[in-house]
């Protein structure tokens, strides 16, 4: 691009946004801050401020959770004993207490909650993929206008309240709810089917709430595929199904991974959906954590539950960061 071409774009932007930025800068940062920015301090400042924020409010909290998970419960505020205490003037006594972790493994309630959460998350992720993949595929192949409309329709529910969308399913699934009323009016069943407080309801809730998270990464991937690859496969005699399994599916693996992780990881710790739709005899681990914390006021055990959940999710989270980083570095 020529110098003048760049300059022309530059000037156009300056014109369009000019008045707005002038206003912003009149009431914005004072002159000395700009001076600071110009002397290389700016770079450090721009990196430093968000870094400090995230370290203080995201990283350090995990250290504190880890610390509290090793302490003893005590009846006070805050309800846990300090890990280290001064003995006399010169010595510190550190008490690491593994009892919370031992307790989690000794009581089958916790182990089964962990396994159940993984199972629910895995099954829901699978159904999410089953529904989301063909949808993403269809949207990626639609005409540009239809594509934009479809994408908007996918995202729109995501902007409305998550809580209310889960709530909507209560009205559909309960015994005198819409689905049972319709089925009985049509004479398909004579007894209402129990759907609330079952695994089925939780799967529905998770698939429903997380579907956009599955579709969007898949769509981003599928949209970039080169159509000539499929034509080449067809020329070489591959049937559409075979071309799909040999060309499209392998190419879309990064999208599948990203989508599945984006659904699976938060679903493991899901709290709202199982609380509203799920079983009462088998709790998911997110609910167990919150009950330990709020109902039993046992902060150390709640901390231990959180640390173990984090350990389970470390590998999926790192995989997610790997795919996410690759996606963001690549210009679209």
């Amino acid at each position: 691009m020529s110098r003048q071409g760049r300059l022309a774009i530059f000037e156009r932007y300056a014109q369009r946004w000019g008045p707005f930025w002038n206003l912003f800068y009149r009431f914005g940062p004072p002159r000395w801050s700009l001076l600071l920015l110009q002397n290389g301090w700016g770079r450090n400042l721009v990196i430093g401020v968000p870094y400090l924020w995230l370290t203080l409010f995201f990283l350090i909290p995990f250290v504190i959770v880890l610390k509290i998970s090793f302490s003893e419960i005590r009846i006070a505020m805050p309800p846990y004993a300090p890990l280290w205490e001064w003995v006399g003037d010169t010595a510190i006594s550190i008490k690491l207490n593994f009892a919370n972790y031992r307790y989690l493994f000794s009581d089958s309630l916790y182990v089964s909650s962990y396994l159940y959460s993984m199972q629910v998350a895995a099954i829901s992720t699978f159904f999410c993929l089953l529904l989301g993949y063909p949808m993403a595929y269809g949207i990626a192949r639609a005409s540009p206008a239809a594509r934009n409309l479809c994408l908007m329709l996918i995202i729109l529910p995501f902007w409305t309240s998550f809580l209310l969308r889960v709530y909507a399913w209560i009205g559909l699934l309960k015994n005198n709810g819409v689905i049972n009323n319709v089925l009985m009016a049509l004479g398909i069943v004579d007894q209402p089917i129990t759907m609330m407080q079952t695994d089925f309801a939780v799967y529905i809730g998770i698939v429903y709430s997380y579907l956009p998270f599955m579709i969007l990464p898949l769509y981003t991937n599928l949209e970039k595929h080169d159509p000539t690859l499929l034509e080449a496969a067809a020329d070489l005699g591959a049937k559409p199904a075979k071309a799909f399994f040999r060309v499209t599916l392998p190419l879309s693996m990064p999208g599948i991974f990203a989508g599945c992780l984006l659904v699976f990881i938060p679903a493991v710790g899901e709290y709202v959906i199982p609380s509203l739709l799920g079983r009462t005899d088998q709790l998911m681990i997110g609910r167990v954590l919150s009950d330990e914390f709020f109902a039993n006021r046992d902060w150390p055990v709640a901390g231990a539950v959180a640390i173990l959940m984090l350990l389970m999710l470390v590998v999926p989270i790192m995989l997610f960061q790997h795919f996410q980083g690759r996606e963001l570095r690549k210009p679209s």
Partner: protein
Amino acid sequence: MSLPRRSIFVPTVLAFGFAFLYVPILSMMFFSLNNSSLVTVWDGPNSPTLKWYVKLLNNRPILDAAWLSIKIAAVNATGAAVLGTLVGLVLARFGRFRGRTLLSAITTAPLVMPEVITGLSMLLLFVALEQWIGWPSGRGVTTITIAHITFSMSYVSVIVQSRLASFDESLEEAAMDLGARPPRVFRSITLPLIFPAILSGWLLSFTLSWDDLVISQFVAGPGSTTLPMVIFSKVRLGVSPDVNALATIMVLIVATGVVVSAVVMQRQERRRQREVQMALASGE
């Protein structure tokens, strides 16, 4: 991309998927007009009625909670937009520096971190901070806002980063060649270019905060009951018709907003492309 033969499978699934997404919302809106308090049993003779809307608008606790949620969401969105933009800029444009990997890790982790873990760790931090330095004294609106900013800024940074990745650095380099210092380049080139991304990040952060139940529940204190908390305690007791009315109002507002902003953004994007083409044509 076109397939040699059009199959019926993909359109069917697409239609089913959209039905799956919209039937619950539409049914909720439909039954908000129902006269019966049994929500899902249609009371034909007396419906449709707006009585649940009237009841809702006279419900003081819900209105107060909604107003509080709006205030928190607005402050959160602004804070998250500023911090998230900085992170996005740093990660996309600042090249290598010490600690870059860690920064990128702690900005993407909140995207998938289960809410109960984030909520618990935040609360324990606030409790510990209060013990050590006496701030924040007690929990309430401040702690909720800080917690919300921390997870919202990740979303903003992802949006800003992908927007920055879609522009090459030639514009910024051109401005530098013309003698502009980095702050000036940011103000005149980068900021206008990523402004749509910041705006959608702001909106997304607003709704994330407006919608958040779990993290707020952990870090809230007495007197800071947000709207999702009120809804959750109502909904736990079963379906209630005024929640349907509330949901309908929210869906309508959001739908209008999303449609309007989509149209505006599309128009701006088109104008931008036209200007780039014109500039290219005039320059060569």
